[in-house]
């Protein structure tokens, strides 16, 4: 067993373990932290597969930006306690069994795919130079089109995030209480 194989197994087991912890942890902040661990292991896999640039981007964008946003929102809402009401045991069991069955079906179906190999250390397509050339030659149209997506997300964040000025605080608090009573929290 070479060094890359050992690394693969370590990273794979860490990834699965930390992904499980994301789902199991009761405290949302722990979930976020475990998810960041998962992202790091996935970046490790990218490096093993010679996708160096993606590995870096994955850490910067996912672990750096997106997860910080999550953490920020969780802190903002003061959810860093184990306040989440739990689903009933049976529902949880049903969910886990359904997921397990799906995994079983997928794995059983894909068991017989051809045994093609992915060599670990060769290749330079993952370097920023090559990716950049392909991105701005062949993929320039989707690149531009994704800007529409960003614009709409931006407009959306403003539309949804901006606080409506007109309602005074007391009315607002009363409304919140009414809704909370309505849904019996």
């Amino acid at each position, binding site marked *: 067993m070479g060094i890359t194989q050992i690394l693969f197994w370590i990273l794979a087991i860490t990834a699965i373990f930390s992904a499980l912890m994301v789902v199991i942890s009761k405290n949302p902040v722990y979930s976020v932290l475990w998810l960041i661990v998962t992202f790091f292991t996935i970046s490790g896999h990218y490096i093993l597969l010679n996708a160096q640039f993606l590995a870096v981007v994955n850490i910067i964008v996912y672990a750096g930006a997106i997860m910080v946003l999550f953490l920020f929102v969780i802190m903002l809402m003061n959810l860093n306690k184990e306040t989440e009401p739990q689903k009933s045991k049976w529902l949880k069991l049903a969910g886990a069994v359904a997921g397990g069955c799906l995994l079983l079906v*997928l794995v059983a*179906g*894909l068991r*017989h*795919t051809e045994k093609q190999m992915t060599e670990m250390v060769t290749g330079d397509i993952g370097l920023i130079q090559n990716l950049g050339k392909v991105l701005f030659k*062949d*993929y320039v*149209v*989707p690149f531009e*089109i*994704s800007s*529409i*997506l960003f*614009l*709409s*997300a931006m*407009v*959306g964040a*403003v*539309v*949804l995030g*901006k606080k*409506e000025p007109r*309602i005074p605080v007391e009315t607002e608090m009363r*409304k919140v209480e009414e*809704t909370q009573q309505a849904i019996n929290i």
Partner: protein
Amino acid sequence: MNALIFSAVSGVIMMFSSFLLNNKNSVRVLAHVLLLATIIANIFELRGISFFHIDTRGMLEFDRFALLFTLVANVCTFAFFLLSSRDLEKIGNHYSDYFSLLFFILAGIVVSSSFKSLLMLFLGIEILSIPLYILTGSDKRNLKSNEASLKYFLMGSFSTGLMLMGIALIYGATGTFQTGITVAEKVPVLLITGMMLLLFSMSFKVSAAPFHFWTPDVYDGAPTVVTSFMATVVKAAGFIAFMRLFAEEFGSIRPEWKLLVGIVAAVTLFIGNITAVFQQSVKRMLAYSSISQAGFMMLAIYSLSNDAKEGLILYAAAYSLATIGIFAVLVRMKDYTFEGFNGFAKQQPFLAGILVVFLLSLAGIPLTAGFLSKFYMLKATIDGGSLALAIFAVLMAAVSVYYYFRLIQSMYFKTGNATISGTTTGFKYTLAALAGITILLGIFPNLLTNWLYF
């Protein structure tokens, strides 16, 4: 390409108009003008004149089918603007932003109806859905709207995850994202698994059973104006993408999925129609009716012939126009239940007559566009080899007559005081024009379908 660039640019212009124009009327007029320009540009491209020559590297193909559907979607949106743009004002404070989101959705419709690469399908579907999540939640103080938005968002991104997994597996099997693959004798398992995942996620997006459970709540919770757009133009665009995907990417492995799509269509028809019968609110009934109409549109994917293509376009036009019309009236009603329409015909005989035309079209009564589009679908299904499915669809259409006629019954044969506000003469004439188009397409469908060939 014309429509794509025009609608994207229009979206940006609308974004800026919020602080350049401080008059809501001028914002509205600007939106109408920009959409009209988009329609004209699209007609030019349909006639072979493209203003832009951009090498998309085979990722987008603007064939006649895509262009014609873009035209239908744009015209339906124009009708929606004419009828309901005043009601958009009432949702919240970001009037011009709503328009810009609608234009971005139109850009997404162009992308998702003319993709040649799975990457474009993915981007198009996302550009369609992300503004919709926002519009669904745009009534910020209303808890139902919040709820609908969160539900739609979680379901939507979950199904996006499934779709991406499907795309990844297909990439593994074929090594390319371009559609139009050729497969050898033995179909790779990776391809079939990917196809199944894509089928599930597209069914989620077009709300075909058994993946429809989010639809009634979301359609019911969203502001009624937004529901009107979401249930018509966007749903039809989802079907066009669905059809394109299965015709071009999976056309060569048709035996693998034909039965499954047939089952999905039958289940959708059954669940949509049967549950619609029990609804008390007209808005919720329309949500279920949109599911049952989705079942009919699934038949086009089942049969995948030229008839099916023509039928799908006609269906998209007929269904969208009729539903937009009904919603435009519904928005102005005080009470959304069936009882709220009691005695409507006495007070507003003109509007009631027009509503009847729309309802007949949805139910598929002859002389309306709805009948012919259903007819095309059934013909394609029988040619596609399944008489049983066609008979089942007819039975379900008969069930649908019940709940559409129930509305007609409460309008004409029950006494009550239905209250409607804000019906101007212009509004009435626009509705009458829509009803006219519905009947015209029901008599001369070639007016629309000929554009596919000439």
